[in-house]
């Protein structure tokens, strides 16, 4: 399987990443290289093997339900481009 240039551009749009025609072509090459790798792996017979959701065969660690993080808004907002009334300001997006 390989990706078309249109598919690369659609993925870039979904992730809101702006790419030029040249970058799209380069990226298409990289991504198709990865697909070739996957195709090689698919040659391995995996019948009867349960798929794993993670590379490590261990279970999720859990934490107790307790508030351990206090208010650090001032520190976090010190590096934000724009804030007002405690809110982060971003270009207007209305769905």
């Amino acid at each position: 399987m390989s990706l078309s240039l249109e598919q690369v551009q659609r993925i870039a749009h979904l992730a809101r990443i702006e790419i030029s025609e040249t970058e799209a072509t380069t990226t298409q090459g990289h991504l198709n290289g990865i697909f070739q790798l996957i195709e090689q792996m698919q040659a391995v017979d995996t019948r009867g093997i349960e798929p794993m959701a993670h590379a490590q065969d261990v279970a999720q660690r859990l934490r107790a339900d307790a508030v351990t993080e206090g208010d650090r808004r001032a520190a976090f907002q010190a590096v934000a481009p724009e804030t007002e009334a405690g809110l982060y300001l971003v270009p207007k997006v209305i769905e």
Partner: protein
Amino acid sequence: MNQWEVVIGIETHAQLATVSKIFSGAATAFGGAPNTQACAVDLALPGVLPVLNRKAVDCAIRFGLSIGAEVAQKSVFARKNYFYPDLPKGYQISQFELPVVQGGAITVQVGSGDKAYEKTIRLTRAHLEEDAGKSLHEDFHGKSGIDLNRAGTPLLEIVSEPDMRSSDEAVAYARALHALVQWIGICDGNMQEGSFRCDANVSVRRPGAPFGTRREIKNLNSFRFLKEAIDFEVQWQINEIEEGRAIQQATVLFDPDSGETRMMRSKEDAHDYRYFPDPDLLPLVISDDWIARVRGELPELPGQMRQRFIDDLGLSAYDAAILTASQEMANYFESTVAVAGKANAKPCANWVMVDLAARLNKEGKVLAESPVAAAQLAGLIQRIADNTISNNIAKKVFEALWNGEGASADEIIEKQGLKQITDSGAIEALVDEVLAANAANVAEFRAGKEKAFNALVGQVMKVAKGKANPQQVNDLLRKKLAG
């Protein structure tokens, strides 16, 4: 309308009753100043990792067990990718292929009185996920303000099968689910604060035909809006089809002011979420021991309590269903019966479901605000049972209790002289007085007019100021008129 069948499935987001977020140690309390409860994990700062909250998993197990579902021994968290400023990571952590709760069902009571019927709604799944932040679009000189306090709040998304066939069934299901999540203590059920919100998938079809194309109504946060939105949407879809236009799959919003639904996005620009297992989180493994422990901690469930009311207290299935529709109602009823006695369970049920409910409804109050406590109501019911007062006088005593005219039914009966006259000598005197004064009625009755008898009973009760025992009055009158 008969030739169209409505098909409804509901997705519900229930906010879980934890103090901290699902993947971070920030607080989940409602109403904090913007961004004071958003930590580095919620802000998606580089290098942070999510760690799952055990209590959120506990809640999911509780829910699964309470609806007879399968609790998955192994479930997987996935990334649901979409771009929006109140979702700083660029993806929501959710569950996709392997949710924590699979299957299950809820039996609901639809309608009331003679038209009431029971229906079992099957559930597809319930999965754990995190909530997004909040975008504020006004007052920021053309920009949007982002509050991430809600980002990372634990949610259980509960998905039903498309088993509902009317807006009434949809509301009955949503109400039953709302009562259940509060009953088992996993969600505070506060709909104003968004702790419980529903999306309705609605389509119409000819009976027996395959499912029609559905439209999804998003974010309904009251039962009234749920009903209004579905009713509008159904009529809109029927009109479209009858006018020859096909329904396009779409997401719509309900505007409570206009009572209409309007399109938010069509299928063409629907999200492509590109789900994949989140490499930051390992599979969630739930042991049999854990499930057994949660099972042991579960309270008596609405369905079990309902059966007990039928078996032990002799209530009808309908009464038992109404009384277990919410935990407050069930507790109030049980407290009333505890004082009034099991033998009075049926009058207790009637007083709670009819008289008290009507009075609360009239004042726009909920049960928790009732000025009449369960023990006070039970005291009143006992006095009816032992013939101290008649049903009619009881309504007066209830009103007096409601208005705080006394601490108990006994006190009010005593103070206001409402005790029923059961002394046969006294009643006989009243009957004689009325017979003497109403010769015309007596003659009519003797001429065969049964109505005249009722008039005479009414006269005696009037003279007795309602306090004479009605049965004794009846018996004595019959005897005297026959003699």
